[in-house]
């Protein structure tokens, strides 16, 4: 646009070395960038709830002495089984891996069965009959100060990791 030539003072050749103006521009842009990143982090931190009013995922399952090999104790509310094995005690999720129904323990067949679509699991949670796509997860078992078993349905552990009291 030739008519604008000279309107903003004489043309200045691009300087080789950065001048004071470039320095302040960089400081300004840099400060804005720092503030933008920092407010992003602060906002993300704000959006993360610090206290959750959710039902507890843990429950006390009783004394380890109650779980002789072959004993299966379901907990309807917490949706878990605590099972006594030859070498210890373990807990299984009772939530069917198909569509989330609550499975039942069949003592006469020593199997776990889902009433909704007929999935069946053995006592280690392995699928013996579909349509469940995955085995039942193993849940964390620990002991509290009184020596009682504590099951955490929120923590899935490696399969076969039996708790030894």
């Amino acid at each position, binding site marked *: 646009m030739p008519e604008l030539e000279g309107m903003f003072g004489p043309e200045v050749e691009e300087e080789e070395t950065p001048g004071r103006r470039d320095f302040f521009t960089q400081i300004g842009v840099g400060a804005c960038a720092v503030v933008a990143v920092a407010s992003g982090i602060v906002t993300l931190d704000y*959006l993360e709830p610090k206290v959750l*009013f959710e039902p507890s995922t843990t429950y006390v399952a009783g004394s380890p002495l109650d779980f002789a090999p072959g004993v299966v104790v379901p907990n309807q509310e917490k949706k878990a089984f605590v099972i006594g094995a030859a070498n210890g005690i373990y807990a299984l999720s009772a939530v069917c891996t198909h569509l989330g129904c609550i499975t039942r323990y069949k003592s006469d067949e020593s199997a776990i069965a889902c009433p909704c679509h007929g999935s069946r699991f053995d006592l280690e949670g392995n699928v013996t009959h579909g349509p469940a796509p995955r085995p039942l997860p193993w849940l964390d078992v620990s002991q509290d100060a009184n020596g009682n078993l504590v099951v955490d349905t*929120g923590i899935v552990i490696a399969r076969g990791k039996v708790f030894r009291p």
Partner: protein
Amino acid sequence: MTVGEWVRNTSVYRSVIRHGIAPTNRNRSLIIFENLFLHVHPVKVREKTLRFTHTFWLGGITLASTIILVATGILLMFYYHPSVPQAYRDMKELQYVVDNGVFLRNLHRWSAHLMVFSAFLHMLRVFYHRAYRPPRQFNWVVGVVLLLLTLLLSYTGYLLPWDQLAFWGVSVGTNMAKQAPLVGERVRFFLLGGNIVSENALLRFYVLHCVVLPVALLLLISVHIWRVRKDGGVQGPPDDERRSL
């Protein structure tokens, strides 16, 4: 002097609308230029671009359903509390107690379906008319983001009735988000505001559905329509000679 003429001569009217009603080209241009809502449109359009078969009015249908959704959505908000179990009761109250509540709720629902449907058809129309090509390639991208926002709006609205469909829909959806590598667990936690689909999740989806996503949508719709003008108006079917290439 008719009443209309008298109104148009008052100083109040002249301060709001400066142009007259003379049927001159200059005045017609001013009508477009001087109106915030019209200025995204070109001053002149070719008559054939207004024909139904040119674009099937699909973008317009999508925009119209958006406007219906904003209007009905605001009205629904007057009766809805995003809390458990009040949300479900409010939904039932709207259906069975509030005058015209069931009409507004159904209008909101069916407009949402129409919006998704017409947005898809609009996208297909643009694709088959090769209207995504330069100089319109950026507007295609804006359109893809708009489609994404439309789907997110549908999905976040799905939770709000707090019925079985809503609860399981969101359970499944957020479990899908959990499968994303590395960040999946965190994304689900942030979406739900916790580990389970509960109060926090309902409130978060409500804020997304009623504030965050609609604001983003309206902003991008403005860019989208403004770009149509800047890119030379709507493009209908390609010319015959171009088709023969």
